[in-house]
């Protein structure tokens, strides 16, 4: 052991009531889900910042449940991403599976938990951006007047406008719920590595129903790991107001509109992130054009027959 470095006390509650009594005794303790983010930070050990109480959430049974019906799926926050795609691969939207697989192989997804990937304070993974397209909501447990309360929030409510986490210090995300409604067009694209070179990475997730030349119910989100994610009506409107396929000048104006929103929300994006965002938007529009042309030509052929 290193001199002058206290070994943090580890509390392993077995259920949520035990958790609430521990949090009352140690209100400044930090929560440990998979630990991937904490352990992968530079100089995470040895560090004086970790001389504190740690509550390990892995033994709480209530946080490891997975339920679904025809319309919604509900996951405990300690369900690992690996468990999520192995148990839910057939029912989860393809874009969500693609997002999870972008984290890496089982060696990474086996340790990253869904709650942990939503609740990191100064790092945003690509998961919240994608989950938000499915109107995800999460159950937050928090202490108020020495009692544990719980409340459901939509995902956008736990982040501020620029996609930063906006939860009180002792709040715990216990469950996450998503709608299982599939849309005809879904695409997840990522450039750069979220770990460990987060300063140049960017991801894009888009869903919508491509009906002839209209892109209905368009939802778009852009994630920049060091800043947050953008998902709002302005961004969605850039796509839903367009008629597909787009010609070159229309594509350029959509590109510019999206880049302007990204630049206004996060003014300190790196040059490479801006270039990569443009590339991702171009790739998405190209894909939408191909889909629109394919759908139109199939319909033309069938009407001729």
């Amino acid at each position, binding site marked *: 052991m290193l001199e002058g470095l206290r070994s943090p006390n580890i509390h392993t509650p077995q259920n949520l009531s035990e958790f609430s009594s521990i949090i009352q005794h140690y209100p400044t303790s930090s929560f440990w889900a998979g630990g991937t983010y904490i352990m*992968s930070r530079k100089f995470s*050990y040895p560090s004086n910042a970790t001389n504190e109480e740690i509550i390990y959430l892995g033994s709480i049974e209530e946080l490891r449940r997975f339920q679904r019906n025809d319309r919604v799926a509900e996951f405990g926050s300690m369900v690992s991403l690996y468990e999520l795609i192995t148990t839910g691969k057939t029912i989860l939207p393809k874009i969500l599976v693609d997002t999870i697989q972008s984290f890496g192989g089982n*060696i990474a997804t086996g340790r990253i938990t869904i709650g942990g990937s939503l609740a990191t304070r100064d790092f945003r993974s690509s998961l919240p951006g994608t989950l938000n397209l499915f109107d995800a909501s999460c159950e937050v447990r928090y202490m108020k007047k020495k009692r544990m309360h719980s409340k459901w929030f939509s995902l956008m409510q736990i982040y501020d406008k620029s996609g930063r986490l906006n939860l009180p210090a002792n709040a715990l995300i216990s469950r996450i719920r998503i709608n299982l409604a599939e849309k005809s067009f879904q695409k997840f694209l990522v450039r750069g590595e979220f770990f460990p070179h987060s300063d140049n990475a960017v991801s894009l997730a888009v869903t919508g129903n491509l009906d002839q030349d209209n892109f209905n119910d368009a939802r778009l989100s852009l994630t920049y790991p060091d800043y947050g994610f953008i998902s709002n009506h302005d961004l969605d409107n850039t796509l839903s107001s367009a008629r597909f396929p787009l010609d070159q000048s229309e594509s350029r104006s959509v590109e510019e509109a999206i880049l302007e929103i990204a630049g206004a929300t996060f003014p300190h994006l790196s040059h490479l992130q801006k270039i990569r965002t443009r590339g991702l938007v171009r790739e998405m529009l190209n894909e939408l054009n191909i889909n629109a042309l394919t759908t139109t030509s199939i319909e033309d052929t069938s009407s001729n027959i």
Partner: protein
Amino acid sequence: MKVDCIIDGKSLLLNLNSNKPLSLILSEDIQNPAISSHCNGELCGLCVVLMDGKAVLSCLVPAFEIRGKSIITFDGYAKTKNAKDIEKAYELMHIRPCPTCYNARTLLIESLLSNNMTSREEIIREMECVKCHCLEYNDMVRIVQAANEIRRKRHARRS
């Protein structure tokens, strides 16, 4: 904190900082020669060990999580029959990872074989966690599939 665990078949009781990464425990406290690097958050993928049979990056595992677990490093694994299957696959394909990533890749291949993950996509996704460019994707796939075949034949002969 006191941590009891089994490392390479030996039961140990260690006095450790509870958040000390397993990679540092193995290199500093156990002086295991198989783990030589602690990348300090760079996720180089060179510190793979098997924890209860599953491949993990030891730099991401804190001391309090290894309580009661069985850990196999390359040192312990190299003496097993399973390791010989992979060694034979390297020889058969005339391809071998570089000395830097040899241990990590071999343990990853073992984890792939024991989990029956032998499709091209799965192999590439898993092997990508080692950030060493000494092998091409096609070579990795050929090695894993050859090792799988060798192991299958060995099990068939035994039964």
